């Protein structure tokens, strides 16, 4: 009894901080999402109406919300696997015994992660400029007509995905690299003695050994990619034709641009449910596989 009291004493500061800065804001947002808090309510609280689940009904009927959701899924479904494949690929290359100047490459490939996004965005906007950009210049050399990368609704999201993958793959690469180095050499030796080809070694040794890391990286990356915001904010402002509006960007506009905190909180709650469901699905699938 005394012991548990002491234990509570130890965790109390942490709990207090979490409660103040995490639970309380979340609870407030949940309450806000049931009201129509806006600029009028800021002026006079009597202008605040409790609307129950009306916000939810309205947001779910807003075409832009569904478009934002579609854009976000597009970004996640294409971006996450691509990002993980690039991370894993570069980790394998760096891990290879044939690779030279490993520290140099490791640093160079990790550099985008620690570069400020705004600076990156400026350079990328130049690269993808329709008439003067390097990308179109290079494509022009092989006879491809100029593409309006960020101005065409069909190519804007792929460009954003490219940016996000390039910007983020280094982080996961380092995690993969650390895990690759932890796989004991004997396992590969045994595989080789059994006559496994390099590809077979990868599929039957490397991948299973990396499975827990893959799951972790998958969850973190998915949760992160669902929160797509900064890339379209600095590159396209959601355009063209709202093709790069993500759920979070939609929320930002409702909340901080138009001061509809009721609606914005509703979107936040919906996004929370979404990420929670997807992450839970992830763990379920892998648990089933582990059990089978």
């Amino acid at each position: 009894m005394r012991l548990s009291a002491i234990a509570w004493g130890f965790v109390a500061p942490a709990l207090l901080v979490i409660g103040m800065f995490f639970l309380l804001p979340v609870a407030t947002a949940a309450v806000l999402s049931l009201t129509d808090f806006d600029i009028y309510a800021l002026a006079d609280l009597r202008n605040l109406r409790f609307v129950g689940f009306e916000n939810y009904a309205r947001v779910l009927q807003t075409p832009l919300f569904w478009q934002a959701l579609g854009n976000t899924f597009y970004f996640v479904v294409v971006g996450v696997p691509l990002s993980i494949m690039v991370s894993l690929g570069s980790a394998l290359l760096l891990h290879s015994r044939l690779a030279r100047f490993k520290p140099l490459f490791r640093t160079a490939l990790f550099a985008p992660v620690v570069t400020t996004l705004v600076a990156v965005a400026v350079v990328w906007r130049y690269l993808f400029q329709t008439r003067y950009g390097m990308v179109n210049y290079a494509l022009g050399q092989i006879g491809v007509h100029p593409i309006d990368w960020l101005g065409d609704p069909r190519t804007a999201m792929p460009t954003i995905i490219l940016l996000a993958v390039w910007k983020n793959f280094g982080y996961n690469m380092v995690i993969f690299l650390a895990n690759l180095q932890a796989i004991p050499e004997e396992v590969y030796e045994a595989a080789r003695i059994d006559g496994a080809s390099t590809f077979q070694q990868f599929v039957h040794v490397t991948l299973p050994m990396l499975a827990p890391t893959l799951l972790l990286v998958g969850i973190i990356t998915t949760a992160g990619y669902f929160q797509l915001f900064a890339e379209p904010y600095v590159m396209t402002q959601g355009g063209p034709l709202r093709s790069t509006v993500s759920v979070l960007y939609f929320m930002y506009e409702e909340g901080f641009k138009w001061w509809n905190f009721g609606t914005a909180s509703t979107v936040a709650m919906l996004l929370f449910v979404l990420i929670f469901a997807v992450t839970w699905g992830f763990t379920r699938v892998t648990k089933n596989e582990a059990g089978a």
Partner: protein
Amino acid sequence: MGREGEVIEQLLPEFERRNPDIHVQIQQLPWTAAHEKLLTAFAGDALPDLCQLGNTWVPEFAALDALTDLDSLVARSSVVRAEDYFPGIWETNFVDGRMKGIPWYVDTRVLFFRSDLLSKAGFQTPPRSWDEWQRALAAVKKEVGPARYAILLPLNEFEPLLALGLQQEEPLLRDDGRWGGFSSPGFRRALDFYTQMFRNGWAPSLTDAGISNVWTEFAQGYFSFYISGPWNIEEFKRRLPAERQHDWMTAPLPGPHGPGASTAGGSSLVIFRSSRHVPAAWRLIEYLSEPVVQVRFHELSGNLPPRRTAWQYKRLAGDVYARAFLDQLERVRPAPAVPEWERIANEMQLTAELVVHGKMNIEEATRELDRRVDAILAKRRWMLARRKPS
């Protein structure tokens, strides 16, 4: 805010010399953060006495009941005289019939154009009506060929379309700002005229992110017409190469039948309700509204004064590029004074983008726009309905 926040420091010593009992403290804000900062300051009860406010923000802060009524102060003032101000600008400061701010400087949109390319295409004078404008656009486009354009209308800027919309007889919002009025024949005409410039290949469908540098592109003749504001006079003088300096001019915006209206933008000076120094703040407003001080302010910042008297001073009267603005300022119309306006203008531009990309026709687009605007104004309707009984 912005550049104004810097240059006002040079105007204040004279004010403090004349009013030794008043000491002015300035706080500078960048424009991009000003709106949020002021709203946060309102929530935290930390607003200044006197403040510069973009005149589209005036209705919003009036809705917050954060602004002092200035009617009686103006009535007693010998400096601030309503008849000397451009009427369209003066009007932007009224919310529900009460004066909430005093115009400090004005901002409207006019045509900037390449006079050499226009005359090459066969036009010695700038267009005055929509018909003339379309003929000029077609001729210039023919002159410059497929790789270049006649006009630049960045798809993320709502001001050009807003100006065309304000030229129409029908108001953009109906019934005291309760409902959208974009399905009116007038706005449909404006939207049709606007989108035609893209359909006919006169304007490239670009956002301003797609244009690397407006001034170099203008100098190279990538486009010949550009709708922009007063700050660009100085920018064009400074940034266009010397050999191009005689090839550009400004002109008032053409209207459906002869010279048309344009937007009434700019900044106003307001006194917040929380202020405990109203008389002192008002003295500063009067000082900054003196024509001599306004001309000095123009010299320092390039901003255009809202008073006709100030325009008679040599520096402004002698500027050939400013003349179009003086002419235009007699024909400016305010945007609807509702707090939701910024968002409505944004929706208007998004809808125009849909039409430009061929996703909707004019009729569908304006009906859809009205539907969205009506939804945005729902709370306002509720507020107005509630106010009535009392």
